[in-house]
């Protein structure tokens, strides 16, 4: 029976995927491109070895960002500020991490701690504002994103800019060798391809930790019941204000890890072209994966695949924006079908329960 429910749950993303492929095909047809050809070249390009490494690398920060968002979602808290939180964390961690050198594991651990602490502090502001001043977290986190972006732009050109650099654009000092995360290529015998970020290991651990935290601990239980029914949660003795602050800080802590995969694995410094938008993309992945660690992993890989494989489109004279439209289609449709399926499953349960009552 449980198996049947699982199968039904999985059908939602599959239906969403099919429909969004259909809709994207329609749009391709309208602009005079052959959908079959387009998807074929995307797919062929996407499964090349080089692409696969790139897809995994792209999916790591997406996945962690989704987890950061999901922690809030689980209790009905919308942390739209993962974007600002991870950028702040990455900047401070990149700056402080470049000031000294110790053995690699310690150095990386230190960088992680700095990033996590910075991001959760930044997120805590929104938590404080909600609890003490009644400002909705969606508003405050969006505003904090703007403030964060401004602060980063300013401080990167002034305080944190690499001294005596002859590089045009502002950037922090490069991390010393001990602060760089070694790639995983040698473990997979793919040393001829580009670096597979070592942060993959941490992403997997983060996924496991997230699962444990939300589904196994009493804190996670409190988060989930608050998300399902805040009134009953309050009557059960949960202090909602305290929980909001805890959830916000936890979400921010995960957010702190988002920027570390590109920082430690590739950029090795914070620059003006450090990847942005990961915080917003994480919201979509969390929705697609229904806040489940496994679902979000699949969602992150899917989005990373679409992003990577769309790179080939420009060369074939197809606008690569079609990929962004596909992502949006998938999200819109999947939200609808999750609800349809959820109602179906509840109905099934009611039927089962009443059958039992009849006997």
């Amino acid at each position, binding site marked *: 029976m449980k198996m049947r429910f699982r199968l039904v749950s999985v059908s939602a993303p599959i239906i969403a995927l099919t429909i969004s492929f259909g809709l994207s095909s329609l749009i391709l047809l309208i602009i005079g491109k052959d959908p079959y050809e387009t998807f074929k070249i995307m797919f062929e390009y996407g499964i090349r070895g080089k692409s696969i490494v790139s897809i995994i690398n792209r999916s790591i920060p997406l996945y962690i960002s989704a987890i950061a968002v999901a922690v809030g979602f689980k209790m009905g808290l919308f942390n739209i500020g993962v974007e600002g939180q991870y950028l702040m964390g990455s900047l401070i961690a990149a700056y402080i991490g470049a000031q000294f050198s110790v053995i690699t594991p310690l150095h990386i651990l230190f960088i992680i701690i700095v990033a996590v602490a910075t991001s959760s502090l930044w997120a805590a502001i929104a938590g404080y504002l909600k609890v003490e001043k009644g400002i909705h977290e969606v508003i405050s986190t969006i505003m904090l994103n703007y403030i964060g972006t401004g602060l980063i732009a300013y401080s990167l050109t002034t305080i944190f800019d690499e001294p005596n650099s002859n590089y045009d654009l502002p950037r922090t000092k490069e991390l010393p060798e001990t602060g760089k995360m070694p790639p995983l290529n040698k473990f997979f015998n793919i040393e001829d391809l580009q670096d597979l970020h070592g942060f993959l290991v941490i992403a997997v651990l983060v996924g496991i930790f997230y699962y444990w935290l939300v589904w196994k601990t009493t804190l996670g239980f409190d988060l989930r019941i608050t998300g399902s029914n805040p009134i009953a949660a309050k009557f059960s003795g949960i202090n909602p204000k305290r929980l909001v602050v805890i959830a916000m800080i936890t979400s921010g802590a995960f957010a702190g890890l988002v920027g570390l995969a590109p920082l430690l694995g590739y950029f090795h410094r914070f620059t003006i072209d450090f990847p942005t938008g990961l915080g917003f993309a994480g919201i979509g992945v969390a929705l697609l994966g229904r806040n489940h660690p496994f679902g979000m992993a699949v969602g992150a890989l899917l989005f990373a695949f679409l992003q990577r494989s769309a790179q080939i489109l420009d060369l074939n004279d197809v606008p690569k924006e079609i990929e962004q439209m596909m992502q949006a289609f998938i999200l819109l449709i999947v939200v609808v079908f999750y609800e349809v399926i959820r109602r179906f499953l509840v109905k099934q349960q009611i039927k*089962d329960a009443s059958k039992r009552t009849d006997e």
Partner: protein
Amino acid sequence: MNLAIKLENITKTYPGVLANSEVSVKINSGDIHAIVGENGAGKSTLMKILYGMVKPDLGKIEIFETKVSMSSPKNAISLGIGMVHQHFMLAKNLTVLENIILGIDRPFLKNIKLSKYKSEIQKIMELYSLNIDLNQYVDELSVGEKQRVEIIKVLYRGAKILILDEPTAVLVPQEVDELFKNLRNLKNNGVTVLFISHKLDEVLEIADEISVMRSGKLIDTVANNVSKTQLAEMMIGKSLPKPPARISSTNEEVILKVENIKSIDEDGRTIFEDITFKVHKSEILGIAGVEGNGQKEVVEAIIGIQELHSGKVEFKNNNLMDQGTRERLESGISFIPEDRQLQAMIMDMNLTNNVIIGRQNIAKYKSSLGTVKTKNAIKESEKVISTFEVKTPGTSTLATALSGGNQQKFVVGRELEDNPNLLIASQPTRGIDIGAQALIWEKLRNSRDEGLSVLLISADLEELIGLSDRIIVFYQGKIVKELDAENVTPEDLGGYMTGLKK
């Protein structure tokens, strides 16, 4: 005599459930016809069929001796059938008049002629002797008045058959009398009334004929010359469970002491004040009051959800004032909130998870690592399911899949399992069937006899008088009377509750 409604062999199955099985009934025009039955007996399915909300699988419906087939409530309304739901469907911020004409099919809103409607509605009110100020806002009306608005609304739409779903559930005795007076007026003017209830006293008082339903079948239709016991036996199919004789086991030890508490709302208005009472060990203290007179807030203040302006609450001689809700619940207070679905359960979680609610932090469910001890929760929910006869396929069933009575049994079971010192029970048997109610009463009494103190808030005055040792009455945020439950009648209580008696 003419027939208003004739149902023949109505059958409706939902997958796995036979909701109505070959129900045949004849309802005379101009009668007050009651339909009684436990929750889940099929009353509401039958009413939904009559009101066009559900289509029967089989069977024939005749309205005023013409065969009909209804596909929507709109259909039913055009045939002269109107329904007053248990939960009123009124817009609070509109006037009575606006509410009555709301939704009437007129294409150009800007041409609404309120005065024209007003005179039409007043004619109807005169005809059936229903009084209400049409210009008042619904917000300002009492529950009984709101119900009257619903009735006028339905009559104005031309209803000749009025279906009332549990109309007295929300009323105090005086309002019930008023309602019955109105129903008799309707009857004298040729309206057929279909009255759904499980309160047998009321049914016997008002109905001309009574149909009894049990597990989807119509057991019998009888004239109103049966006894309450006979009716009840037809309804549950066995002899009524008798409440155990009251043995007053009250002892002098004070468990809960509430001293002079006062609370004010955001606008600075007093919600309640001067509230002082004690609950002794092994005592059930009943709280009577019409909804909205501060009693709900008082119990919420005791568990720490409602903030206090002044005063003090002591539990087992410990001051509760600087403790949060969680500490209070863990120190031996159990709480059954009035709305189980909203306040006591997480509907989309299974029973194993629901048994933990309110106890997340006790050692039984929380390991030293901070994880949930699921095994204990499964064991505990199994125990609750078996001792409280909760009908469910298992512990992994979602709470929402259970019927109301079973949900409530589960909540009461959960709150009694850990042998608390004090149980605060708010409407513990509201809206559930007789079987579940009897079980909960029995468990409450047994626990009381074993030393539990209970603070009981109930709108069911029979229940309040039957279970309590003492009763305090709330009116306008104050305690107006303390009564010995032994010699008090529902009418007395109703008088104090509505401020008629002092």
